[in-house]
């Protein structure tokens, strides 16, 4: 037994990769439809957007980056589909350099026009505002001083939607997509504290512990990466990629958990064996 455990302790890590890859591929080729329990933060996220009164203004702060686009895309797409199905106004800006490209890619998947939305009247997108938290604060204080034109170079004063919107005081809800773990602090400090704006967050799984600390006091709800995307797809009956990703993740975790347990057993049995020999 001890010999087996000692061999296990020295097993080539590539076996772990091979098992994980095989288990990950199975649900992608043939979706399993494993059961998913919708968590309270996701239920809150869905209901807050669903219950927005007609004409509400939603600001969408896009902070995705290319390297992490895959982990936030499904949640963002599900959220954008839900927003555009509501009678609300949508204003987006980006706090990451990759934001405009990624936001446009997601909007091309969602296709706001298919929900009867018109660019400039119902939704507008602005480019990247550099400066991190300073940019977030600037957009909350004065949108016109942050951007003089929209993404398509139309002067902000010529955009019908922006005629009555200029600061956080005109906004009912802010949704922030962030993948830098402490970026959720920006919205809490610059929108929630001074303007009491309702704040929803979308993030990757690894940044979830950061935003969870703000729930539900400062952040009213959040979506944790593809897990949140799957739950949103179930709640809103929105077809998407989240379910497949969740299946693959669930299976892919099996060898990791197994190896962690076996690795610990091997380590401790070797350690106690040596102590007994002494």
């Amino acid at each position, binding site marked *: 037994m001890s010999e087996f455990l000692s061999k296990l302790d020295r097993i080539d890590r590539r076996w772990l990769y091979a098992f994980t890859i095989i288990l990950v591929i199975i649900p992608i080729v043939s979706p399993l439809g494993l059961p998913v329990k919708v968590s309270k933060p996701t239920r809150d996220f869905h209901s807050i957007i669903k219950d927005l009164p007609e004409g509400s203004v939603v600001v969408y702060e896009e902070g995705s980056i290319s390297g992490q686009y895959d982990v936030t895309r499904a949640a963002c797409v599900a959220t954008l589909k839900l927003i555009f199905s509501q009678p609300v106004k949508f204003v987006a800006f980006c706090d990451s350099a990759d934001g405009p490209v990624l936001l446009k890619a997601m909007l091309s998947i969602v296709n706001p026009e298919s929900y009867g939305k018109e660019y400039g009247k119902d939704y507008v997108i602005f480019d990247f505002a550099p400066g991190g938290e300073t940019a977030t604060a600037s957009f909350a204080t004065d949108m016109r001083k942050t951007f003089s034109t929209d993404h398509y170079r139309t002067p902000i004063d010529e955009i019908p939607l922006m005629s009555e919107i200029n600061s956080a005081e005109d906004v009912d809800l802010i949704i922030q997509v962030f993948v830098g773990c402490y970026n959720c602090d920006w919205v809490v400090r610059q929108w929630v504290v001074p303007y009491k704006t309702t704040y929803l967050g979308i993030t990757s799984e*690894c940044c979830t512990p950061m935003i969870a600390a703000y729930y539900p006091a400062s952040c009213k709800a959040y979506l944790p990466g593809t897990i949140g995307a799957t739950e949103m797809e179930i709640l809103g009956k929105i077809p998407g990629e989240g379910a497949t990703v969740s299946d693959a993740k669930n299976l892919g975790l099996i060898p990791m958990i197994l190896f962690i347990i076996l690795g610990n057993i091997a380590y401790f049995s070797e350690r106690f064996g040596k102590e007994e020999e002494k």
Partner: protein
Amino acid sequence: MTPIEVLMTWVAAILTLMVFSFLWKENKFYRIAEHVGVGAAAGHGTLTAINSIQTSCLNPLLKGQLLLAIPLILGLMVFLRLSKNLGWASRYPMMFMTGTGIGVMLGAIMEGQIIGLLKATVADIFVGNAFLAVSALIVLVGFVTTLSYFVFTKEHKGGLGTSARIGRVFIMASFSCNWSAEMIYYLGLIVSAFMFLINVWIKQAMLGIV
């Protein structure tokens, strides 16, 4: 798929496979893909920054907003760091950036990140729900004992020692929670890469299945 899309899918798929080759061992294909990735990101970042300077500073400046010349000059001064003789001057824009950043941030730290969170936690203790009360109590104990762990002006003995030891357990629990979230996140990246390889590259680009 258009021929350009097919070509781009093939390029992306080959680069993805080159990155995955690192799982076997370090090799030059992986390094090529890594350098391509870093180069593309740097190029895109530079172009986005130039675009941002043009739209948020140069264009309004040319339209008469002369005050914007100040941040533009300060921005250019950052590059003086490259000069041996004038490098000192780059500290002034850094000073402004750091000062503004801290000033913007500090105003709401106490209310947003300490008092607000603590108030919400304490309030849960009195809502009349046993589960929420116990949960809030654990958070409160964790908060206080974790803070006590970082008290370095007094030796960790007696009450403070006990509190710090309990705090260390909470810190370790927090680390493990963060680590598991990190693991799930990286697994998500692997899943997405394989979804691209199977659903886009093999099914759409190779087999023509839409």
